[in-house]
């Protein structure tokens, strides 16, 4: 039996985990994992930006027998325009982090947004559309693999921290879904 690995979204000061495998991550103006239309992002006025709360995602082993899991990675299909045309006024930025903290809204004067965990003291986040299958996000650069424990509660690799940033030209409404893929090697 191969390993069962799930994608979890982490929220709140209490680090609540929600299984998002094959699910939807809704960027919003609140720190929760609920996929609804409450707390929508607001299209900013000219000269301003709007950031979502950060989304903290991490892989976790829940079941199965295996020897080791390694080479954790995440990538997009390279087109994260969310139906907004090109160049998109809606972008998703990422950074990785080794340890959890409660999600926050990055300061909105910065484009791209910045995250303290990625550098000292802060570092610009990177557009997720740049990370495709041939050049993915390294998801075990900080918490390095291979992972061999396999206990049901074992969280593996780094956190993927995402922020959606809006520019004034964004169109209102529910955005077309875009796909984020996590992959790993298993022996």
């Amino acid at each position: 039996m191969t390993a069962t690995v799930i994608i979890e979204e982490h929220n709140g000061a209490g680090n609540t985990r929600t299984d998002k495998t094959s699910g939807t991550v809704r960027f919003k103006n609140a720190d929760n994992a609920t996929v609804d239309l409450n707390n929508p992002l607001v299209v900013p006025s000219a000269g301003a930006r709007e950031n979502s709360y950060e989304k903290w995602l991490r892989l976790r082993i829940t079941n199965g027998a295996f020897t080791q899991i390694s080479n954790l990675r995440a990538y997009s299909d390279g087109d994260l325009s969310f139906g907004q045309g090109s160049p998109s006024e809606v972008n998703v930025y990422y950074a990785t982090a080794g340890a959890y903290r409660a999600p926050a809204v990055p300061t909105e004067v910065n484009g791209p947004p910045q995250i303290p965990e990625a550098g000292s003291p802060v570092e610009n986040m990177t557009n997720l559309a740049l990370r495709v299958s041939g050049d993915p996000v390294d998801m075990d650069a900080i918490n390095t693999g291979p992972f061999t424990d396999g206990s049901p509660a074992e969280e593996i690799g780094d956190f993927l921290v995402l922020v959606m940033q809006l520019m004034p030209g964004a169109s209102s409404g529910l955005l077309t879904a875009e796909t984020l893929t996590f992959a790993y090697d298993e022996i």
Partner: protein
Amino acid sequence: MAQVLNGALLSEPPSEDRIVKSGAVTLTVFADGRKTAGFVRNGIKWPGGRKVEMLVGECDGVRCYAQERDGHVYIFLGRRNMEP
């Protein structure tokens, strides 16, 4: 393993002053583009700094709501699904 990413975007506030009413509460919303002391980005601080968790109102027939966020209260305008 795949996930989908998306979000819901609300239109920016209109360019005129609006009145928000909800129950006994009436307050003036200074809309986007008006540089007053109460203007904050794409939302408006609640006059006097009063704090609420959520308030749903109406702005000239358009649904609106007030929400505390980052230590401030902001007013957002929209036509749908504004209930908390």
